[in-house]
């Protein structure tokens, strides 16, 4: 099978590996980079569990080929915590608001919300729900997740009094 060399920056580190051209970015991250925090639920762009930041934009890593991401700067769930593994404001809010249970969908939600609050620091509830509409959770329910986004918006300082 024809292999191509993929080079990209993942969570600040340069990564390079030869892989089949058909390999998705998600499989590349999980299998070639050992970053198994990016989860694959549906593998056709519906569930959002595999969401990563590609040059800052939230994308579904199951719908991007690794070769398409060559040269890009990728941030995964593993790259969001601060020094000493301190949870990011979004991660901490999910913990505080019971925004996760089994945790399978959580990386996709956290990455999605991280990008959303960067672009919409003071969102309305309607905007929050629309932002979450591309991610599926099958056990926790969405109320805690919505509450987590509200709390994270406050923690991040974007909410106007």
């Amino acid at each position, binding site marked *: 099978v024809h292999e191509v060399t993929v080079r990209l920056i993942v969570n600040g580190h340069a990564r390079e590996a030869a892989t089949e051209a058909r390999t998705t970015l998600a499989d590349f991250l999980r299998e070639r980079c050992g970053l198994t925090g990016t989860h694959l639920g549906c593998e056709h762009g519906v569930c959002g569990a595999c969401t990563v930041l590609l040059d800052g934009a939230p994308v579904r890593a199951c719908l991007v080929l690794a070769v398409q991401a060559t040269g890009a700067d990728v941030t995964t769930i593993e790259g969001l915590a601060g020094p000493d593994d301190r949870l990011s404001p979004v991660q901490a809010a999910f913990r505080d608001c019971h925004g996760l249970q*089994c945790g*399978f969908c959580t990386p996709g939600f956290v990455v999605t919300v991280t990008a959303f609050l960067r672009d919409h620091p003071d969102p309305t509830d309607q905007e929050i729900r629309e932002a979450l509409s591309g991610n599926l959770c099958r056990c926790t329910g969405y109320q805690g997740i919505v509450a987590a986004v509200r709390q994270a918006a406050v923690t991040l300082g974007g909410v106007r009094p």
Partner: protein
Amino acid sequence: VTGVAPGAARYVGSRVARVEDARLLTGRGTYVDDVVLPGMLHACFVRSPFARAAVLGIDTSAAAAVPGVRHVFTAADLNPDVQEQWHTTIGKDGPDTPRPPLAEGEVRFVGDPVALVVAESRAIAEDATELVDVDYDQLSAVVDYTTAEGSDTLVHEAHGSNLVARLDTIALDAFADDLAAAAHVTRATIRQQACAPVPMEPRGLIVDYTRARCPTRSGSSARACSAFPSTTSA
């Protein structure tokens, strides 16, 4: 809190931080698909595209010839050694409607597993499943609960009927006189949705057969997952 043991009082009524959240929130959980073992192989099923069909033959030769494919199994290979686990909520006298690991002679629903490909990677296994040539003779299917009982088509021929279980909460015959004398009788058909699992709640399984490596420890270790990050080991 009164009347509660001191240990319980620590938790009742108080918020308790979950110990697993930090790793789940930072991508450090361990789900079945994250586990890689030395020499691990991947399995992929060939599944029926029909709701009901006779299986006239299966040609696995092209799939078996794919580099990286270790085995291609059909019912004849696997079923004789499998003790079928049978589960029912209607008691031990429920009818035996077999659900063999791999379809024997007939498929009974879309997705019914027909063959199993084992390969060195998931991609190879999935590629090879497309090369398994199953000769189906499509048959009429039973797709409606309301007409199933009167249908000439039997899902389980040996059972002799499409009625497998009946849940009666009230013996209505006992109220026949009351119903006949009632000023008003209301009839209602209550429908409920069909349920199906989503891919985020899979039944993943990893089995590590250890007897060959470790003569003192027979058996195998298994990791399973159904929407829970913790693995089950046996």
